[in-house]
């Protein structure tokens, strides 16, 4: 039937990732008329000017949150809406019923697709909600109490087994959720807030101009680049990124960005042939963009990025120098003019190269240079405690310390979910004892990577043979999906492993370990987990 075909076509394009929604149609239909045309076969007009549409008007969400809601309406409630209308609606709702920057503090990792975050929420919310999905998914919404209650009822209809799960069936889950959790959420995450009211009044700064960006991509390393941002329409920009990785490999890309709620930067770029996303937040004064950049098709492969305007040092790489060592140090930032000055006991021998965004110097720490973090200055621009002077690497931490990778591929529809690691070095500090408060953080250090069984069961089941491999860059790739007849009970290529990072420090090798659970696929992948 023709109608069905049309519906399927619309559903297909409607699944576009949010960062791809960067072209606003010139004649965008008015969002409210789209709501009237598309949503009111189920929703109703309330007659209240402050909350004109039932359900819709009593919630605030992130752009991704609105995207999820509208996609669910398409997939499960029969909503038919064009991709253009959907873009318009997400933009309008995220702008007018969004979250203030302060309301996303501490939970942006979910928007940024940051993997391996160990959450800690209030026990009631943790036990009632976070046993199934992230706490951030809750904390990135604002609703009236009635709306939070509607959401509890929604769970009972949408997931009828929710109250029968382990952790739910041993208590009156529905009653607890309705009578205890919903009022608490209405208090903790209220629909009406000063933060949002005030943020709406703030005169948002244009993000036009050239920014100095630094960041990290697993397998490639740290980079610095200049990000040129050009406005094409309200909240719409083209972006170009030009720079280099720490090893000198150039980096180049371009794309588009859209800004929601005056600060939620979502960009889609192609960098050296790879499609990437940026999920950043603009600071209120319009001087900084911070967040995460990751590969579109492999969200694990990404890292923190920061872009700044004005006279700023954004990174010093490497961020450590050993007593008696002579090495190249790269200072990245914006408008880097003037003499380079390093701190006590560390001499700047000569400037190897420089431009406005990066200065490479040959530095030397004396054998008696004081252990501690020193300031780095270029002209009048200063970065406090940006370079750590150390005696020896006393311990190494591997981040993330707890991690999950998921088998995939092997002809199945779900790709492998990798995990990526970095080693952070520490000196022992004044007390000479590693693992104490005065340890000196040296920053990310190069490491050699290996795997070992986490415990005796992993050893016995030979997880190390099946669960996957780690690259020299610290990227773990899990094994193929599916039953493996070679294994006990034909189990999947799952495993319980330790990731070992070994940092070489002169004559010493210092190791750190992280825990890696290689498990099965996630079969449901919402926009916000």
């Amino acid at each position, binding site marked *: 039937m023709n109608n069905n075909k049309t519906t399927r076509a619309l559903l297909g394009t409607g699944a576009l990732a949010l960062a791809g929604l960067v072209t606003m149609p010139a004649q965008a239909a008015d969002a409210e008329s789209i709501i009237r045309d598309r949503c009111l*076969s*189920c*929703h*109703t007009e309330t007659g209240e000017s402050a909350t004109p549409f*039932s*359900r819709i008007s009593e919630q605030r969400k992130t752009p991704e949150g609105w995207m999820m809601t509208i996609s669910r309406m398409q997939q499960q409630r029969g909503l038919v809406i064009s991709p253009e209308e959907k873009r318009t609606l997400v933009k309008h709702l995220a702008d007018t019923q969004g979250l203030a920057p302060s309301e996303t503090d501490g939970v942006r990792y979910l928007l940024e697709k940051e993997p391996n975050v160990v959450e800690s929420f209030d026990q009631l919310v943790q036990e009632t909600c976070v046993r199934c999905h992230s706490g951030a998914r809750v904390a990135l919404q604002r609703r009236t109490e009635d709306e939070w209650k*509607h959401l*509890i*009822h*929604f769970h*009972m*209809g*949408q997931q*009828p*087994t929710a*109250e*029968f799960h*382990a952790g*739910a*069936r*041993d*208590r*009156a*889950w*529905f*009653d607890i959720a309705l009578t205890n959790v919903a009022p608490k959420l209405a208090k903790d995450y209220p629909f009406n807030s000063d933060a949002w009211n005030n943020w709406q009044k703030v005169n948002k700064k244009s993000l036009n101009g050239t920014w100095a960006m630094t960041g990290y991509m697993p397998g490639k390393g740290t980079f610095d680049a200049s990000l040129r941002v050009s406005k094409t329409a309200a909240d719409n920009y083209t972006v170009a990124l030009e720079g280099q990785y720490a090893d000198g490999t150039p980096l180049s890309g371009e794309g588009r960005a859209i800004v929601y709620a005056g600060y939620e930067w979502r960009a889609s770029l192609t960098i050296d042939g790879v499609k990437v996303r940026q999920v950043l937040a603009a600071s209120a004064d319009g001087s900084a963009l911070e967040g995460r950049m990751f590969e579109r098709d492999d969200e694990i492969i990404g890292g923190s990025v920061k872009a700044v305007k004005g006279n700023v040092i954004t990174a010093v790489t490497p961020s450590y120098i050993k007593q008696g060592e002579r090495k190249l140090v790269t200072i990245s930032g914006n408008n880097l003019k003037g003499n380079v000055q390093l701190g006590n006991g560390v001499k700047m021998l000569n400037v190897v190269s420089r431009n406005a965004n990066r200065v490479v110097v040959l530095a030397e720490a004396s054998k008696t240079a004081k252990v501690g973090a020193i300031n780095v200055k270029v002209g009048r621009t200063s970065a406090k405690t940006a370079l750590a002077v150390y005696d020896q690497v006393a311990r190494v931490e591997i981040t993330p310390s707890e991690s999950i990778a998921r088998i995939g591929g092997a002809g199945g529809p779900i790709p492998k979910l990798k995990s990526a690691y970095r080693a952070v070095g520490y000196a022992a500090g004044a007390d000479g004892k590693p693992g104490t408060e005065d340890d000196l953080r040296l920053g990310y250090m190069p490491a050699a990577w290996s795997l070992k069984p986490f*415990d*005796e*069961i992993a050893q*016995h*089941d030979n997880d190390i043979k099946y669960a996957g491999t780690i690259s020299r860059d610290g990227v773990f790739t899990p094994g193929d999906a599916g039953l493996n007849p070679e294994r*006990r*009970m*034909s189990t999947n290529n799952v495993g319980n492993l330790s990731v070992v990072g070994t940092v070489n420090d002169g004559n010493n090798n210092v190791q750190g370990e992280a825990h890696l659970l290689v498990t099965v696929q996630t079969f449901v992948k919402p926009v916000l987990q």
Partner: protein
Amino acid sequence: MKLTKMFKQAAIVTAIGASVLLTGCNNANTVAEAPATINGMKAGGHEYILTVTRPNELHIVDTETNKLIRTCDVPGVFGNGGIAMSPDGRIAYVMTNKWEDVYGFDITNCDIKFSVKQSYDNVQVKSITSMAVSADGKELYTVQNPVRKLPDRFETMEPRLAVFNTNDGLNAKPVRTFPVDRRITKIGAMHNGEVILGGGDLKAIDPQNGKTRMIKALQNWDRAPDKWVPPDAFAMHSLGEHVGEFIMPYFTIRWNGAPGDESKADFLWGHVRIDMKTGEVESIEKVPFEFIVFNWITDPHDKDVMYGSFNQLSKHNVKTGETINVQAMDHTYYNINMANDGKTLYIGGTSSDISVHRSDTLEKIGSIQLTGDMSTSDLRLARLK
């Protein structure tokens, strides 16, 4: 942590378990006289094992030959594959269509004699495995979990026991309904007419008037909270038909030291066992929580002996807590049942094969390959009269 250690021990026990010897010998049920047949199927008390597989098929296995003898197509999409038998062993009531509809099959010819579509109008009704047939076969019971789907929101309604007349044929409607607790999974019909409601606590309801009484408080038990953790009582499958009983397993922790001090605690399986004829109730926590099981079944020759399956097949004395025997399994099996003679165990669910074992040694003696995965389906014993 003690719990982790226990799981480790359990896992290692499985890992080093003896390899399986397939003898191919069957454990035929001895029948004194030549049985009558119905539509070519041995009757007169002959036993069959029933289960449901994806995409949605009811299978009937003869316990004498351990061969699949009949497969019936079940209407609707799979889910959950629950089965309740009529007392004469002839009608299998099968839960289908994502836990919503029930179809009653004559297992001798696959004819559909009865059906219920529980959802109606804008109300979505799911039964989470809870289905039973009265001892006289005249009534079918389900626990319904209704949610009203309003145009722009859901409204959770009160769960209820729904009573159907089994001779109402196709598109039967409830003849009575009574409010019940939330979170009920496993139900059973006693000979006195009451229906056992297995949820957080074990209650019985009179399906004539809805009057409810407590059989055994579990979640709301009256034990010192500094000594005992209230149980997590849960079971997907209603078993025990081979000996006429209902068992609700549960997990609890006994604090022998300070509450939370796991080094001094006992992690225990408990169960409530109800004799469906007499209503006698037994409740005990002795078996150490070293094995995951979804259900226990009782040895017909020794009520103190129970069997459980998941990643291992295990045999326990529930009075002493002794683990009598453990058998490694080829994969995970959610479900277990046994023939009335007490000699043969059938281990199914999850995947597409029923593993057949001797009950004395737990040795694997056969395997019945089905056409699809059983997933959460029941594995029920039918005694065709």
